[in-house]
């Protein structure tokens, strides 16, 4: 497949935004609240582009993306805490934690993918929703301690008998406390770039073509010899792994992390980023994630009307984005007719 100029533009804009924010930060041009949001924005951007791989490129609606974020947040942070003495350099420890988080989330994605990817549409959405809730329930009841004798795990009650010399890391509903804040804006930027490189390379590859063929028409994909389960799994696991590392990045920006942070609302919030940014449009996801993370904070002075205004803004965005003039304007920048919703419209017209 030809490399889209859109991909190149995405890289340029992300690098440009990072450079501009770094310069602003160095000159003290960023408010403290905005400075505090830089890492969460990076984490949400990675969440949005990774969910866009499942929803926009593969075309399956997943409502449990926060579950993978949770897996990465808890297991990545636990790894970082366990390695606190062994690996003194924060950047190295963060890197290891992000990789471990991605691995565990990928495993979770694979396990959940086995039953889920045999389903389609609404059924898949329902099962992923349940998965997110199950993960939340597990981490709300999980106790994990590390001491000289190794890792101890218990559920519901703390029966890990972690030695005094060790440390009880995950404490059930209290989550993880006393986290060293080792996540940095630069680490977030690098994670975004890696996510984009992974996703764009996948989309441009033979496997990516197969994944989009499944989205377009799974019967036709089957008829040309595409192994549907394999390629669905590839997209789903990649998406989960990226979400896991985003979770770890997110958690290590705060001193505590609890399972309730990664609930259904978070999954929906990320889905809103993806839908508003445009299905399959990674640049759109990045912009939507950044804007919609800053917006609630920016609206803090009018706190009482914040959610009202937020809702109105969402509606206005949807209306303007669908306006023929606005669409014609943006269509000049992209290959025509690529938008999934447009093609669906064609299919319906065809069926009439």
């Amino acid at each position, binding site marked *: *497949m030809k490399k889209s100029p859109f991909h190149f533009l995405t890289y340029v804009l992300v690098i440009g935004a990072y450079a501009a924010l770094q310069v602003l930060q160095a000159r003290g041009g960023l408010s403290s609240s905005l400075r505090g949001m830089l890492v969460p924005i990076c984490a949400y951007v990675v969440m949005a582009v990774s969910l866009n791989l499942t929803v926009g490129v593969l075309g399956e609606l997943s409502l449990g993306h926060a579950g993978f974020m949770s897996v990465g947040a808890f297991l990545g942070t636990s790894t970082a805490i366990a390695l606190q003495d062994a690996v003194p350099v924060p950047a190295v420890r963060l890197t290891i934690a992000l990789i471990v988080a991605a691995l565990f989330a990928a495993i979770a994605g694979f396990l959940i993918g086995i039953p889920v990817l045999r389903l389609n549409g609404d059924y898949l959405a329902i099962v992923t929703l349940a998965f997110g809730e199950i993960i939340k329930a597990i981490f709300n009841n999980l106790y994990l301690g590390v001491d000289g004798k190794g890792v101890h795990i218990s559920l519901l009650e703390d029966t890990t008998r972690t030695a005094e010399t060790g440390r009880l890391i995950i404490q059930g509903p209290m989550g993880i406390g006393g986290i060293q804040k080792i996540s940095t804006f630069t680490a977030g930027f690098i994670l975004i770039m890696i996510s984009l490189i992974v996703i764009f390379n996948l989309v441009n590859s*033979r496997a990516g*073509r*197969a994944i*989009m*063929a499944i*989205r*377009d*028409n799974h*019967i*036709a*994909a*089957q*008829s*040309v*010899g*595409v*192994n*549907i389960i394999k390629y669905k799994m590839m997209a789903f696991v990649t998406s989960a792994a990226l979400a896991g590392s985003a979770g770890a990045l997110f958690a290590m920006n705060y001193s505590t992390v609890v399972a309730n942070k990664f609930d259904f609302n978070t999954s929906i919030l990320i889905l809103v980023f993806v839908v508003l940014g445009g299905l399959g449009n990674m640049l759109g996801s990045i912009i939507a994630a950044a804007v919609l993370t800053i917006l609630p904070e920016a609206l803090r002075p009018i706190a009482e009307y914040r959610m009202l205004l937020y809702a109105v803004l969402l509606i206005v965005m949807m209306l303007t984005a669908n306006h023929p003039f606005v669409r014609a304007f943006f269509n000049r920048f992209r290959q*025509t*007719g*690529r938008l*999934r919703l447009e*093609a669906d419209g*064609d*299919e319906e017209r*065809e069926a009439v």
Partner: protein
Amino acid sequence: MSKEPVLKAENLNVYYGSIHAIKGVSFEVYEGEIVTLIGANGAGKSTTLNTVSGILRSRTGSVTFLGENLRRVPCHKIVARGLALVPEGRRIFLQMTVEENLEMGAFTQSPAGIAQDLEQVYALFPRLRERRKQIGGTLSGGEQQMLAMGRALMSHPKLLMLDEPSMGLAPILVEQIFQIIRNLHGAGSTILLVEQNAQAALSIANRGYVLETGKVVTTGAGQELLASPEIKKAYLGG
């Protein structure tokens, strides 16, 4: 005509849940033939094709293709064996360009020969060459059918299976599509054609099988069936 059939389906029994859709269907296709399965709505024509191509599985019976039993071969590997299906209702990739659709058809082939295969398909369907940069969803119904057929040809099929290529097309386009099938046959392709348009199908077929509620009720040479009074009455409008 060689002795061993290219495709041999024996005593297929296919169920949708508790519904017994195909009841002991057997048929053969020999090299260089056009064989057609005809029948009314719900007779089990498409179910039979989907079973041969591995999308559905028969509970009993066997499908043998070029001497190999396909029972244990997964659906996505059957295409690589040389058995290509053009699914019912066209089923092209609506968001890909015509050329990308055709390249997708060569998914199981090595990339080296794709350019040459594309040329062959374009020679067969000049209309597709004109529209090769166009998004699939913007093609007309007839063009989409040509694209679906061209896409199947990209996999170098030893047997091409067409599921209702005339569905929803204007009569003049149906004629064009059948002319193309005739041309493919003339060039040596072996074709299994499923059709509701019995008249058109039988007039180009070497042999035909008539399906009724999941069973083969009659079989014979195409011209023979076309002339048979019962067939005329049941399927050809008197």
